[in-house]
């Protein structure tokens, strides 16, 4: 009997601890009420005190972390503030609460790297209705006519796809079986690049794309699908991984499996900081990327300009992006709306990889 009684006492104690904890936390709080503001229609200078929500794909991806930092830099130059909010998984469900929080906080702009091109649309539409400027970066949304938004393109989509195939072709003499190690199967940017890779492959009749696998930008998943790929295709000559998580996981694996590294060439989009070691030990010859911090910086300036009304989504309007200079908004075509291109990707190899610190 005493056992049961003790157990109950412990139970009661534990519950009280939780409650007291909650109550204490509630006591030490201060609340600030923000006056509502909406993006003005036209203006000549960017507003002070802009509140911008950056919603990356997840809060752990090193690439996204760098982009968010760039955005914070932009807004601090403009006298505004950035709130970074997202989930730990690359899902739409993890981003929706962050969009809602931005709406409720009367944010001036949302800068989002979409995990899903469509599932976020109903929530983003609500944000647009409240007058919040919507900017997509890294991975675009595809919502039809609403909400109108600006896409910050890291580099011309077609250039990324074709240049990666060219980069690999050079290293394997344009022949053999190749595969793609992508991120999430629903990622818009990945699928757009893969589409252009397939088109470019038509120019290399001796290169055969045997499989596209999805590592969901998760190192463990990427490793599993990579191992499956290598065992399923013993004659594989090359892998393109257009994602920083995929390429670094694959490089790590190849650097510890030299027999495989001897016959399989790896390239794709990687961060110089993560890939340096593999370039120097010969696992990887070359890869490419743009500066993710610049991407976030540009997105931050674009969001501020749109929210202040100093630029509009009309093709040809322009805005100033701090140290990066002036950018012109390009007209939408097909499924893509108005966009801005950061610049061409940089190819990294032994000669230049040490010069970059991102």
């Amino acid at each position, binding site marked *: 009997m005493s056992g049961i009684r003790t157990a109950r006492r412990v139970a009661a104690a534990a*519950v009280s601890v939780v409650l007291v904890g909650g109550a204490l936390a509630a006591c030490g709080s201060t609340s600030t009420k923000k006056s509502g503001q909406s993006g003005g229609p036209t203006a000549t200078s960017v507003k002070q005190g802009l509140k911008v929500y950056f919603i990356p794909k997840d809060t752990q991806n090193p690439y996204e972390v760098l982009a968010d930092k760039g955005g914070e830099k932009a807004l601090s130059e403009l006298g505004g503030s950035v709130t970074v909010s997202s989930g730990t998984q690359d899902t739409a469900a993890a981003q929706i609460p962050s969009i809602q929080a931005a709406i409720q906080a009367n944010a001036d702009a949302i800068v989002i790297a979409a995990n899903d091109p*469509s599932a976020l649309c109903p929530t983003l539409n609500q944000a647009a209705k409240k007058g919040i400027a919507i900017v997509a970066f890294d991975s675009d949304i595809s919502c039809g006519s609403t909400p109108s938004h600006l896409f910050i393109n890291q580099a011309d989509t077609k250039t990324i796809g074709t240049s990666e195939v060219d980069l690999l072709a050079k290293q394997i003499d344009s022949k053999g079986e190749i595969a793609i190690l992508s991120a999430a199967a629903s990622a818009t940017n990945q699928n757009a690049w893969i589409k252009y890779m397939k088109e470019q492959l038509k120019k290399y009749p001796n290169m055969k794309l045997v499989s596209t696998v999805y590592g969901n930008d998760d190192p463990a998943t990427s490793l599993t699908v990579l191992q499956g790929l290598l065992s399923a295709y013993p004659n594989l000559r090359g892998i393109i991984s257009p994602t920083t998580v995929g390429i670094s996981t694959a490089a790590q694996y190849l650097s510890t499996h030299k027999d495989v590294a001897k016959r399989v060439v790896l390239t794709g989009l990687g961060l110089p900081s993560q890939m340096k070691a593999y370039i120097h030990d010969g696992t990887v010859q070359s890869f490419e990327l743009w500066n993710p911090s610049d991407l976030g910086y540009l997105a931050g300036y674009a969001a501020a300009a749109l929210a202040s009304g100093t630029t509009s989504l009309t093709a040809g309007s322009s805005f100033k992006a701090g140290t990066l200079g002036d950018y012109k908004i390009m007209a939408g075509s097909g499924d893509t709306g108005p966009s801005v291109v950061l610049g061409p990707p940089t190819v990294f190899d032994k000669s230049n990889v040490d010069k970059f610190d991102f």
Partner: protein
Amino acid sequence: MTSDVVLHKNNDKGKREARNSAGANPAGAGRPPLWRSALRWESGLVLVLIAVLGYGSAKSSTFTDPSTVFYLGINTGYIAIMALPMTFVIMTGEIDLSVASMLGLSGATVGYLWHHGWSIWPAFAAALLVGLVGGALNGFLVARVGLPSIAVTIGTLTLFRGLAEIMLGALIVPAPGDAQFPDWLQNIGAESIPGTQLSWSLAIFIVLAVVFGVVLHGSRLGRSMVAIGLQPEAAEFAGVRVKRIKFWLFVLSGGLSAFAGILLAMQNASVSYGAGTGLELNVVAIVLFGGVSIFGGRGTIPGVVLSVAIFGSLQMALTQINVSAEKQNIVTGVLLLISVIVPNLGEVSARLRSRLRRAQPALSGSTAPSDAAPPPPNPRRKATS
């Protein structure tokens, strides 16, 4: 054990007595303390909810905004719907880990058929049918073949998600060129029920919760489920159709998960194969935090409803305060641990004591009455079979 003795006499009267006892007082003298501790768990939940609401209102200026209720419904409603059949399944000592994959498979079915030109209602019907068939597969393997539900549903978790992936692959429906889903359906993700702040999914959950509450706490079927959870053998001998009930509970779970999948698809106005990945753990967490025993036989619908409210408002508050997602996971994990440890402290200690007593009967003699603390005859089997 006493009911076994009665049953071995094997006459109609004995059976009837056993059935009565299984229904009204299934665990003999163990019942009142369990009932009392369950009551206390719910009062604890009410206090936790008040604490969360107080914390949210104090720390976030937007928490008291009416739109919080709507967003909470959007984020939590479809998960909460899956928690109701999960409560029943866990009450009977089983578990269904395939719910989130079924949600994804159902959405994928709608998307696949829509992409291939079906109109919306037949696509919904097909998705629901997929849910019922998938649930029946779980139910057949668990109830008829007798395999452990944790193993079976881990298998179907992978199977259902795999099927969804095969159906849609990288396709996101509506794909370019497809028609959009009907406007009034898409609006369930953007607009609340007119005149309220309730999302459609949350309103449906509330209606379902009332139905599930009445069944669990006010019907013979509900008492049977409790009996199955406490002592499956005894319930079986007492005439409860254990296998049939378990089978249909898995069918129900599959069907409602498929329904939640349809709701989510319309809420997002789009479908991809990965919808709801990993949500099974949130569903189980909500149910366990609601005070439902993972060993079966104990739990209430009001507890689960409170748990939904706590998880939902905690998520809203933490996101509004911009607590990082990693820290939010830690908070959820700790709450879940508390919910498993605290209510089971009594059971665990009772089981330990009875094992001790059995180990040394000659030394101490059996002084305590045999029904003072009735441990389940084979707790491990109950938890998994």
